[in-house]
């Protein structure tokens, strides 16, 4: 039987090589940061604020201190030597941790350290704060929230997409829709908790913490502690899921480092699941007002999109996904605006596909509504408005295969059998609906550096501080080295996730494969050049006098086109070297050379997406079947088909898993996930894995991934468009559209649960 997990590669796709870390992961030997043994650790337990807004007037620690085994309690009164955090400078929040000012529910107010986890847990319950409390503002519509224009306060979004006169275009359009959508608060909830273990050796600090950006964390922690960044090492060999939550520094890390310094003993923190909802970031709730105008033939003439996003009181975090939504069809005139609504909440942050998940959900829902109003098939409506040029500045796409994706997905799905009439298809008690939507993700590439060592027996070691978050980083980095060096993947050792290695960007923005593989490619090519030079300039030897252009590396040999070859061992011998090692820095087009020095300092810039002379996006088409029970309104998704094009695919196995998991994330966004907020107290109600709904195995049926060949030489030297955040985009719209098709009911607020259909 064919193995669906290992698709046969098509053009411009690498092999379905099994993950090189798979054996470690199935035997329990992959060491996630909290698995790393440290000598005689003390255990930290956090105490968090019960109120969302106010001030700690008094902290009674007597009960906590009386617990045997308690070693130290950090509070705002004894941690003044920690430097402040500042949002946007490596930190995900500027909320003053430990107080005494309280700016969010669940803010850390004390860290209890004891000999055992049990004693620390007991003692933490004995920390008794007394607050002066003010009424907090929870979310949209709460009294006391403030609103501001994102372009005025967000340095990344000073200009949002505009083209032509959208108001005039909409006013003159024969067919117009004017609709509003809402998306809920979501928390990443990676299976691995937020952990930090800190150990000092003299004045040198080692931090074991799951991180998507070890260089950012290293520099951030050094700043907070006021020490030289070169004295901080961050180790994050495996990350147990992240989805954006481990990309920016959280307040806990410096606290644990400080506790370890004070005790002169390693300190280990494993925060609780509930604390994870408030000590890190989340996807904020959003609202959207969209107007689309079209001619009767389906050609769009105008698109207006105003977004509203919640953020914390002090920080202007905003995703402004109109940057992307405005690029993807031939809209004609475009007007966009984004507003930040400040409430008494923790600062939101990147969560898988941050800008596009909410904004493309809204746009792709509106596209379906417009197709319905025009009486057009929704796929044909997208075909009419497909474009190789962004409407913002008429810039060309570097490559775009959207309609190829639709055509392949539609054929596999059987879309042609769809009766366009909503509520027309029934199977017993089940109403059947088909829906579709576009998936889109901006292609990002960042600077990176790598060190590669090659031995004469064909063994190689690659070092780069990329991050293994389930993306297959170890494997695809190893594949790139194996390919360029002409050796087996099994001969490559890959070292990542350690700030002692050459830097790589944050594992965010789906840039890991593009950036890291481009750096590894460049470094390997330095080794190739040295080997070729030695082979062709030799006085003797089989390749003497040849042109280096005719050579390649294959089967641990330098090989010429005509089959002549010379073994690595012979060339190394002639060169008089035992190993060849090279280090190279890769800076993508559009960034200054300074970008690498900045990266060493924990500052990252990336290029691509909607910026630049060409716009760069990975794209896909997702088609779903939903079944809604006619009586109970239970909603099931028996099958989903997605076809995706993302430039070169390094490994069809890891790609398949990311896309499949992404579509299930999309199902979750549509039907399951929402963090419920108590509007009175601005607290999260369902801060645990029993009440925060994510899909379980029984929720998932047929998920089909189709890989579409695409070649793009513009995006980066590796030719790779990231896709880790592609497949969960658009899915929620496809499902909402399918539910409309099944029932005739349009729900414009996620998640769609049966009570919403019963009330409709």
């Amino acid at each position: 039987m064919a193995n669906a997990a290992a698709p046969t590669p098509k053009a411009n796709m690498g092999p379905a090589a099994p993950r090189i870390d798979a054996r470690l992961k199935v035997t329990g030997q992959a060491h996630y940061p909290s698995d790393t043994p440290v000598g005689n650790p003390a255990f930290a337990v956090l105490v968090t604020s019960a109120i969302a807004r106010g001030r700690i007037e008094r902290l009674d620690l007597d009960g906590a201190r009386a617990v045997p085994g308690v070693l130290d309690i950090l509070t705002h009164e004894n941690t003044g030597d920690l430097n402040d955090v500042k949002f946007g400078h490596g930190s995900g929040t500027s909320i003053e941790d430990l107080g005494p000012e309280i700016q969010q529910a669940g803010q850390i107010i004390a860290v209890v350290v004891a000999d055992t986890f049990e004693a620390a847990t007991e003692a933490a319950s004995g920390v008794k704060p007394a607050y002066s409390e003010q009424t907090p503002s929870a979310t949209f519509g709460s009294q006391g929230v403030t609103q501001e224009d994102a372009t005025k306060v967000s340095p990344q979004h000073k200009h949002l997409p505009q083209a032509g006169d959208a108001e005039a275009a909409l006013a003159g359009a024969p067919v117009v829709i004017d609709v509003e959508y809402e998306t809920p608060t979501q928390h990443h909830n990676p299976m691995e908790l937020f952990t930090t273990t800190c150990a000092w050796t003299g004045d040198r600090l080692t931090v074991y913490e799951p991180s998507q950006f070890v260089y950012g964390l290293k520099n951030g922690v050094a700043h907070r502690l006021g020490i030289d960044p070169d004295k901080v090492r961050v180790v994050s060999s495996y990350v147990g899921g992240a989805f954006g939550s481990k990309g920016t520094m959280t307040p806990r890390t410096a606290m644990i480092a400080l506790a370890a310094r004070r005790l002169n003993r390693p300190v280990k923190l494993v925060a609780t699941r509930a604390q994870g909802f408030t000590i890190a970031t989340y996807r904020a709730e959003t609202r959207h007002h969209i107007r689309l105008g079209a001619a009767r033939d389906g050609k769009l003439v105008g698109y207006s999109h105003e977004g509203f996003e919640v953020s914390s009181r002090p920080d202007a975090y905003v995703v402004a996904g109109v940057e992307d939504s405005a690029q993807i069809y031939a809209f004609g005139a475009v007007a966009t605006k984004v507003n930040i609504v400040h409430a008494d909440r923790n600062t939101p942050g990147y969560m898988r596909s941050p800008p596009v998940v909410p904004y493309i959900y809204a746009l792709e829902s509106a596209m379906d509504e417009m197709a319905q109003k025009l009486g057009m098939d929704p796929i044909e409506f997208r075909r009419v408005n497909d474009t190789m040029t962004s409407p913002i500045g008429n810039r060309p796409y570097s490559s775009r295969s959207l309609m190829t994706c639709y055509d392949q997905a539609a054929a596999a799905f059987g879309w042609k059998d769809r009766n366009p009439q909503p509520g027309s298809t029934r199977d017993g008690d089940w109403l059947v609906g088909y829906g579709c939507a576009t998936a889109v993700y901006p292609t990002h590439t960042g600077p990176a550096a790598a060190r590669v060592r090659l031995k004469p027996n064909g063994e190689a070691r690659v070092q780069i501080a990329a991050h293994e978050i389930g993306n297959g980083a170890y494997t695809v980095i190893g594949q790139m080295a194996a390919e360029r060096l002409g050796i087996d993947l099994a001969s490559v050792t890959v070292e990542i996730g350690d700030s002692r290695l050459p830097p790589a960007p944050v594992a965010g923005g789906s840039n890991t494969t593009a950036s890291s593989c481009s750096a590894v490619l460049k470094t390997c090519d330095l080794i190739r050049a040295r080997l070729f030079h030695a082979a062709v300039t030799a006085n003797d030897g089989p390749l003497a006098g040849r042109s280096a252009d005719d050579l390649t590396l294959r089967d641990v040999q330098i090989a010429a086109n005509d089959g002549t070859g010379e073994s690595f061992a012979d060339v190394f011998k002639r060169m008089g070297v035992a190993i060849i090692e090279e280090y190279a820095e890769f800076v993508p087009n559009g960034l200054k050379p300074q970008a690498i020095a900045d990266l060493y300092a924990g500052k990252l810039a990336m290029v691509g997406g909607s910026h630049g002379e060409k716009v760069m996006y990975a794209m896909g088409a997702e088609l779903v079947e939903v079944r809604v029970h006619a009586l109970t309104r239970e909603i099931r998704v028996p099958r989903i088909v997605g076809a995706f094009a993302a430039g070169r695919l390094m490994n069809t196995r890891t790609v398949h898993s990311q896309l499949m998991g992404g579509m299930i994330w999309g199902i979750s966004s549509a039907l399951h996930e929402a963090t419920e907020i108590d509007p009175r107290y601005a607290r999260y109600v369902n801060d645990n894995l029993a009440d925060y709904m994510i899909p379980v195995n029984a929720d998932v049926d047929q998920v089909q991934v189709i890989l579409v060949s695409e070649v793009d030489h513009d995006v980066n030297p590796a030719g790779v468009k990231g896709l880790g955040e592609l497949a969960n985009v658009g899915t929620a719209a496809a499902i909402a559209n399918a539910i409309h098709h099944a029932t005739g009911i349009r729900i414009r607020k996620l998640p769609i649960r049966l009570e919403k259909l019963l009330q409709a």
Partner: protein
Amino acid sequence: MADDDIAAKNPQRSGTNRRRFLMASVSSAAAPAFVRAATADAAAQRNSSGARLPADFTLTINGRDYQLAVDPRTSLLDLLREHLALTGSKKGCDHGQCGACTVLLDGRRVLSCLTLAVAAQGRAVTTIEGLAKAGALHPMQQAFIDHDAFQCGYCTPGQIMSAIACVNEGHAETDADIRESMSGNLCRCAAYPNIVAAVRQAKPVMKTASRD
């Protein structure tokens, strides 16, 4: 590593008012297992419930006996991870909601975060570290590799322990059976279809192996 060595490198550990309870294993295995325990302070300050007194007991884990003295409140999961360096079992919620800590007790799957270590006395504990025999993977481990039944890998030890029990319970007869029976183990990367395929592959191999 001898505990004296640790103490020498970490002077705080041998502080004047603390005494370590050091336990060697009584198993036939060559390397003795040392276990950090509750402190002498705890023993000195016993409360009426005696909750802080270290409990002395023996556990059999992956076929090896461990003599232990730990805080009786210690969960089986924390015992494995923090006292015995068996970190394959993962903490994902500590509330029995995610399944990442799943181990086998006398062949039955249990959540080690909801099981007090002392309550596992007299029963055979099997963790992910106890599956591979002489370097040969268990059929379920191999099936998880073949079907890429994980991404980040954090839930994987729990999934595999649960999957083995799922087959042994006779709950792997159909795909729908497997999905239902594996729904106590969350996978945020959402490798679910690949997990089902892995269980499907491993089931006949496990049955053949058990007949041998």
